[in-house]
């Protein structure tokens, strides 16, 4: 129940921020969509696997929105299409990369994402290269919104998607297959001797991670109304891993907590120290890793335990 309470408090806090600081609505929407992608990274981290290429699926979701927008006017359908394309791509790549572990898994993911990045850059006639593609604002649930109403609608869409995804992932992590992710990390061969295909366990999580990244990418495209190859670039993949470690992998709240803090630090640090904001992000991560290995979610958990433990 403590989890539900924390989630409730987080939602209220985000809503208040969005209400009183209009510019934070956009930042929160981006943070939530980043959080969705990081939720997928967290699943892989549970299995001890780090993907340095998941920006590929973010880009797949975002470019699907951009490519389909001329033919589809409904944001929800674009979102679903983004998730579907990312999942399909995840299946193709996943069937291959889930044969590998550790550094090989990480590097192969990186390789696939860099191939996608260079295709997005070079196939100018199709993708407009580094200029990217502008996305005409679609309708949401049939409503043609713009201005603050659109910002609100998109923010709420991202919030609902995050709550839904967080709930489903929490259930999944408590299921046998979700729990077996931790077994891949500690003693994979024993799974085989239990009659379970470790590769299938990992592939399932990989598909979920691709779908989550696809949804995140689609929401990003709807929020920024502009997609570029940078979405697939390796630094973006690294950012997702960075946020996952910042937020912690112990609880589904971690990725969102990490994403919100990451975006806020980025926005403020970039405003205050335009030349050094990356260094500040680095210091934040360093402090988190050295002082709270379980990330922000772990810190929050300890705090809640201390406050509620005796009462």
């Amino acid at each position, binding site marked *: 129940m403590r989890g539900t309470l924390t989630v409730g408090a987080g939602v209220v806090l985000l809503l208040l921020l969005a209400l009183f600081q209009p510019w934070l609505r956009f930042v929160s929407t981006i943070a939530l969509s980043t959080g969705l992608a990081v939720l997928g990274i967290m699943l892989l981290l549970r299995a001890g696997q780090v993907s340095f290429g998941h920006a590929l699926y973010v880009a797949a979701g975002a470019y699907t929105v951009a490519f389909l927008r001329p033919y589809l006017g409904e944001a929800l359908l674009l979102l679903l299409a983004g998730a579907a394309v990312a999942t399909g791509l995840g299946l193709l790549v996943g069937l291959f990369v889930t044969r590998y572990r550790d550094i090989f898994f990480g590097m192969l993911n990186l390789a696939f994402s860099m191939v996608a990045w260079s295709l997005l850059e070079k196939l100018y006639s199709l993708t407009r290269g580094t200029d990217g593609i502008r996305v005409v604002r679609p309708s949401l649930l049939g409503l043609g919104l713009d201005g603050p109403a659109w910002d609100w609608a998109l923010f709420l869409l991202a919030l609902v998607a995050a709550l839904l995804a967080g709930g489903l992932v929490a259930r999944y992590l408590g299921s046998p297959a979700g729990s077996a992710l931790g077994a891949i990390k500690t003693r994979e061969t024993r799974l*085989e001797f239990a009659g379970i295909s470790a590769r299938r366990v990992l592939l399932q999580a990989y598909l979920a991670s691709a779908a989550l990244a696809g949804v995140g990418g689609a929401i990003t495209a709807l929020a920024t109304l502009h997609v570029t190859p940078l979405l697939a670039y390796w630094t973006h993949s690294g950012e997702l891993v960075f946020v996952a470690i910042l937020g912690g992998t112990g609880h589904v709240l971690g990725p969102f907590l990490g994403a919100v803090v990451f975006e806020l630090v980025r926005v403020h640090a970039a405003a205050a120290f335009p030349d050094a904001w990356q260094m500040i992000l680095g210091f934040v991560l360093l402090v988190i890793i050295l002082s709270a290995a379980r990330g922000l979610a772990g810190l929050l958990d300890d705090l809640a335990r201390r406050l509620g433990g005796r009462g």
Partner: protein
Amino acid sequence: MSAPLLAARGLSLAFGGVRAADGVDLEVAEGEILAIIGPNGAGKTTFINMVTGYLRPQAGSIRFTGREIAGLPPRRIVRLGIARSFQIPQLFTEHTVLENVALHLAARSGFWAAFGPLLSAERRAEAMALLAGLDLAAVAHARSDQLDEGARKLVDIAMALALRPRLLLMDEPTSGVAAAEKHAIMDRLVAALRREGVTAVFVEHDMEVVARHADRVAVWSQGRILAEGPPAAVLADPVVRREVIGVEGAPC
């Protein structure tokens, strides 16, 4: 006589010059508890590895309920009803003891129900009953990397039992267990095996344990079966005493 549950014929496997199995014939009857003894490096663990699919024999056949299983992957063999435990416990160290067992219960059914809880009331009760049968109920909620070696060994066996096998292969179930506890642990284990009607093969170095708990003994030496039969007869055999018990030192 009814057909054996497990029948190995002409089983051979060499690692370079070392013949771990050199034309071994060995049968296990349904319901019996067979101990395999022999000097270190004789090929006892290799036998378990071949039966469970970890190693593929270079020659020979292994039939389980009449079906050829030599060379099948571990996953397929487990599903046919053969489980194993390990000399060095292979536990999921981030999980609790209860979760370790529950994951193995789930492996039989409901594993891919993506949103059904691992620790469903049913599975939790079944896992607790299994743990209680091995006197492990007290550590059910401990993380499996916080147990002492003896308890880890038993948890490893509990995981294998959770697969509800027809045949259980155990690699040195009492090594690493305090000498004073060995018989108590084996008593519980054998009682559980008999209760569940599980046929078992165990590799063992402690001759007292063998004499007390095995129905039959096979002596494995230099890739061959040197002798087999009831423990009293085999352990009294002068050749066995010289080759296995004497030369390799006192029972440990």
